[in-house]
């Protein structure tokens, strides 16, 4: 699949991670920071999750067969993601409906939070594919870390009487920053001379993309929370999440036979023609 073909998945995962992240961190923040997901935040979460599911439906080649996606729940990580996404949306919507007039029961909040956290984990597991050389390491954990950091920042931004940034929010953002730095380090360590020829236009610019993601999601929101411009905090965190997903798919490097041949061709090209020679190998005129 080309990087261009990943566009619907960028939209789907951005929306799903944002929506699920808000509800997933709610139980954690409620216990430690006396902050709870507000009705506007919950409404946004439900809307984001619903739109994400619609986008994922629209990207199918055969939408009429969408119900078959749950057929291999258990063995297939993609089936698991679809089933958990449906359950998380239903629980979040129920939470919103129950809490419209009075606070929803704690058990309901915990259930919705657990399902949304499960969705974030499931999204990570879907892309933990051995054939994808840049997705098997810390990249598989970034959906849950980024989702929780995003959710914590958004919930805090919507708390009316903020007195400093709670430790739980700082911890969640800090954990995401640490995980993403590992991911960045992994992306930096891959051999660009081989990977770059098949990885598309994103690869040579991986450092600006990673830096932008790190700045918008892990650096900028915390000081903005102290200054309290709510729209700016939401915009920064949302931008960070979108850049995270664009970079995730943009930096995809799939193992294929074409890529393997490319790698070996590069080895041959760079090999000295004879032992002791300083020149690299040269093309022959007529020899197989």
């Amino acid at each position, binding site marked *: 699949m080309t990087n261009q073909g990943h566009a619907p998945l960028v939209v789907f995962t951005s929306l799903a991670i944002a929506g699920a992240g808000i509800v997933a961190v709610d139980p954690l923040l409620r216990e430690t920071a006396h902050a709870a997901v507000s009705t506007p935040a919950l409404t946004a979460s439900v809307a984001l999750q619903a739109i994400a599911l619609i986008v994922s439906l629209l990207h199918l*080649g*055969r939408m009429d067969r969408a119900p078959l996606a749950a057929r*291999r729940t258990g063995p297939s990580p*993609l089936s698991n993601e679809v089933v958990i996404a449906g359950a998380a949306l239903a629980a979040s919507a129920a939470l919103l409906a129950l809490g419209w007039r009075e606070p929803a029961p704690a058990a309901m909040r915990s259930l919705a939070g657990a399902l949304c956290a499960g969705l974030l984990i499931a999204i990570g597991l879907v892309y933990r*594919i051995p054939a*994808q050389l840049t997705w098997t390491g810390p990249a598989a954990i970034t959906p849950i870390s980024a989702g929780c950091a995003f959710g914590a920042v958004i919930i805090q931004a919507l708390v009316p009487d903020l007195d400093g940034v709670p430790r739980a929010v700082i911890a969640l953002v800090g954990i995401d920053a640490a995980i993403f730095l590992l991911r960045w380090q992994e992306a930096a360590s891959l051999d660009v001379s081989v990977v770059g020829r098949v990885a598309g236009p994103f690869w040579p610019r991986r450092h600006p993309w990673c830096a932008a993601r790190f700045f918008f999601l892990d650096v900028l929101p915390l000081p903005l929370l102290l200054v309290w411009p709510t729209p700016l905090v939401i915009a920064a965190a949302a931008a960070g999440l979108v850049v995270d997903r664009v970079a995730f798919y943009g930096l995809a490097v*799939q193992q294929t036979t074409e890529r393997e041949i490319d790698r070996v061709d590069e080895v041959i090209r760079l090999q000295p023609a004879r032992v002791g020679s300083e020149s690299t190998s040269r093309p022959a005129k007529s020899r197989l």
Partner: protein
Amino acid sequence: MSAGFVLDLHRCVGCGACVLACRIENGRETTAAWRRVLPLNLRRYDAGPTYFLSVACHHCDEPACLQGCPSGAYEKRPDGIVVHVEDRCLGCRYCEMTCPFGTPQFDAGRGVMSKCHLCAPRVDDGRAPACVATCPTGALQYAADVDNAQVRPFVPGFADPAGCRPNLRFRTPAGSTRAARFDALEERLRT
């Protein structure tokens, strides 16, 4: 038993007849070709041999496409052939991401994936797959059980980092300058 292909690298001249035969037999458009011929060291650098890899689906023992598919659109037959059941395919393209050989192709016209089925109808009739039957040099061969073939599982340019255990085997050149280059390249890749 694992059905698959055996490719003789010394005989394959990269003519592409297998690709054409596959398209004709299975009615494939050029955008969704099931078989492709990939040249290695096409510019003929001194440091390596030049040969062609004619590849399609390898009907792996542990197929990543089958394992990841959410709708059960892939099945492995008792003879080892991995078939794609089009009626169950969602067109989610997940198998395109999971296959470490770039095998499944998206058929935009029908909105589903497609891939080589080793000409299963022909094999069931006791005939060779179309690509094998057409190969003018006899480089591409069908094996009902590739494990019994005295051949190599991997050559430079063909790797299985995902542990899918593909059922493609190779015969390599022996006793020639080409063979020496081949061995030297393998040694360099190992180190």
